[in-house]
């Protein structure tokens, strides 16, 4: 069952198209990773989904309802953590958590104390004194202690330390086990790889790749690490080979899925000593899109390179 989807979602600020026909779809019980560099449209998409911004064209739906018109109804079952958490400087963290949980209109703060302890937050301090990470914890605790069906998280771990990051991941895995759906925007690729069933890659307002991690890897092909007695001649010009990187005596490169047989037969003439194959990591997938797009568009990708 589809929990959340956008159909040809377009958002323009003046003439600038921040989103250009974005299509994503999150099913029930899925963790959906939404990745892309800064300014690519991740936050804009999430804000349209939450009815904070109004779509210029296309549709955005959650639980089958229109995310602009039925915002209030939808929000009773959604928890959101914004990318930049800005809090009221003269309220304490504890007060903000209680307020945010209550304003959802839904039930339960049964996990409040446990979460505060796990995330190691001092709730009696004024928000003014919190660091970025602590402000993020406040928003995360408020989100996780609500009983909802869908979590929309915008780079929730960007200010957390590695220990807290792990705590966060444990909670996400637990929520997933309970059949909750999660839309997770991130540029920490290892995190997405660990948590997500499906991934969409967005760049300059356009979705450039979407599907399960397995599909993406399959589509992209295989990473080969090869050590040969003779140096491999002219590897860069072999059909289907990209991303060549020397690794000590060996060389690593990516092979398009349709060309594996051909490439293996080509390199075997240089007397293979060792060969390892592995699926591409998300980072390799990601970087490949940038390299390709950079060549075609000629515009710097910026961001996380």
């Amino acid at each position: 069952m589809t929990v959340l989807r956008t159909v040809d979602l377009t958002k323009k600020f003046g003439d600038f198209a921040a989103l250009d026909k974005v299509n994503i779809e999150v099913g029930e019980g899925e963790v959906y990773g939404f990745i892309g560099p800064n300014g690519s449209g991740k936050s804009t998409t999430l804000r349209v989904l939450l009815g904070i911004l109004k779509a210029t064209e296309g549709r955005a739906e959650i639980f089958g309802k229109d995310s602009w018109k039925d915002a209030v109804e939808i929000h009773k079952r959604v928890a959101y953590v914004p990318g930049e958490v800005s809090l009221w400087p003269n309220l304490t963290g504890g007060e903000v958590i209680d307020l945010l949980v209550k304003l959802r209109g839904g039930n339960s703060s049964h996990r409040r104390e446990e979460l505060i302890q796990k995330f190691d937050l001092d709730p009696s301090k004024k928000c003014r004194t919190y660091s970025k990470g602590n402000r993020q914890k406040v928003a995360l605790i408020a989100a996780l202690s609500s009983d909802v069906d869908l979590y929309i998280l915008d780079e929730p771990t960007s200010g957390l330390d590695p220990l807290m990051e792990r705590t966060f991941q444990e909670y996400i895995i637990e929520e997933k086990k309970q059949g909750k759906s999660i839309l997770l925007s991130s540029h920490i690729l290892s995190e997405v790889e660990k948590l997500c069933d499906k991934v969409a890659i967005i760049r300059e307002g356009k979705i450039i790749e979407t599907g399960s991690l397995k599909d993406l890897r399959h589509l992209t092909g295989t990473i080969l690490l090869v050590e040969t007695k003779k140096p491999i001649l002219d590897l860069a010009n072999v059909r289907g080979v990209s991303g060549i990187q020397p690794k000590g005596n060996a060389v690593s490169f990516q092979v398009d899925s349709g060309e594996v047989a051909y490439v293996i037969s080509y390199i075997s003439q240089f007397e293979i000593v060792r060969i390892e194959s592995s699926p591409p990591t998300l980072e390799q997938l990601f970087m490949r899109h940038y390299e390709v797009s950079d060549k075609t568009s000629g515009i710097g990708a910026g961001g996380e390179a």
Partner: protein
Amino acid sequence: MNRHLIEGTGTLIRFILRRDRLRLPIWIASFIAISVIVAIAFAGLYQTNAERIAIAETMQNPAVIAMLGPGYGYGLENYPIGAITAHEMLLMTAIVVGLMNILLMIRHTRTDEEDGRIEMVRSLPVGRLSNLLSVLVVLTGVNVLLALLLGFSLTVLGIEGMGLEGSLLYGSALGASGMIFAGVAAISAQLSSNARSTLGFAFTVLLAAYIIRVIGDLRNEALSWFSPLSWVLRTEVYVNNYWWPILLTVSVALVLMGIALYLNSIRDLGSGFIPSRSGKDKASKTLLSSFGLVFRLQRTGFIIWGIGLLVIGVIYGSLFGELETYFDEIDLMQQMVILVEGFSLTEQFIPLLMSIIAILSTIPVLMSILKIKTEEKNDRLEHLISRAVSRNRLMGSYLAMSILTGFVMLTLSSIGLGVMGNIVMEESLSLGTYYSSAMVYFPAILMMIGIAVLLFGWAAKWTGLVWLYLASAFFIVYMGSLFQFEDWVEKLTPFGYVTRIPIEEMDYWSAAIMVVLAIGFIAIGMIGFNRRDIGK
């Protein structure tokens, strides 16, 4: 001073001037424009000595002294126009100059520090005192420039009785009071650890300076010496042209600035001398709704404004006793005030006081409704909008708070006025009279709220215009009697349509029309707010 403490000050000064390249000229130009316009207008209105002496007579009443400070030069054979202009304008302008200095000082000290910008600057090869010092230098320069430009501008008008020395002294009095409050704000910024309470602290000092002066000028002259706002009035510009008050004010200002620099040098970045307390780790029941949040965020301001307006009411009320005797004694005054049969002079004075009180009450009302804009700008509306809070409920919470504010402010000030007035007067009026003379302004306040909501819904960038509108309303009321405006000028703002209770018959029609218009504006504003994006 060690060089390493002030390294980079020059660069920072240029940086501040770059950041404020529009802000500073606009402030200075506004002061000059208003002073020049008023000076020209007064010169045109009171051309003969007889006219000037006549207006001077009307200025010698306790209400005017409370509001503007004591006049001077009344015994002179030829009463100069400059004395009228200075009496009417100097104190009020000095307060606004003080306000400008406070706002600019905090903008470049605590606000920058709170937002982490000073940390970035301090990580560069820049001295520990450089930031504060550069702001102090810039503001001192602004005040000196203001003094000189204002002095020369008033001189070149060539108005008889407003010569070079007097005009320069007039400008210097304003510049000197500006420096005092730059110093006050600089110290506040060291004491408190956040911009909000720094602002509160500095404003409190400004308000206290005004109130001490009021009480001092009316009751006990020695007390006036504790208020810097009194000092500048002692210059007796255009009559005696005393320069020593300027010397005194500037010296004290320099001492304050020195203290601020010292405090700045011994504290850690990001901290203040008044420690921030920790709070509750759980929210109280009253916080847990969108209105609860709105109320909680505005509570402190609400209480302070409430006390302030109560005090203003009490101060005005305390004048009534003296007014009575004063009016009895001076026949001329009775000719000046338009007599309405069957009403005492005090009763005729109430509407004028109320119009000023109502406009003052509108300030916290507009601050309250416009908080929603600050919240939006700081990305905090998202927290509410992304939860089960509709835009109507959100806006409604702010509306409720601002309407409540207007109601409470009018109530408190009229009770203060009435109770105190009845204590000091021989013949008392019913409290109901006072109360209705204040409440009759409620529809006008609703109109101002309506205009604010309308702007916020459809043109959030321009919501600041509502302040300009309120300022012009104040200007029209404040200057109305002296400028003798045409009737239509008064009708430019909602405050011109309010019945003058108790001397006029209640005009229910205009009140009803204002309420209906206000509701219409609010509704249209809400439609706009429901249709637009939330965010910066």
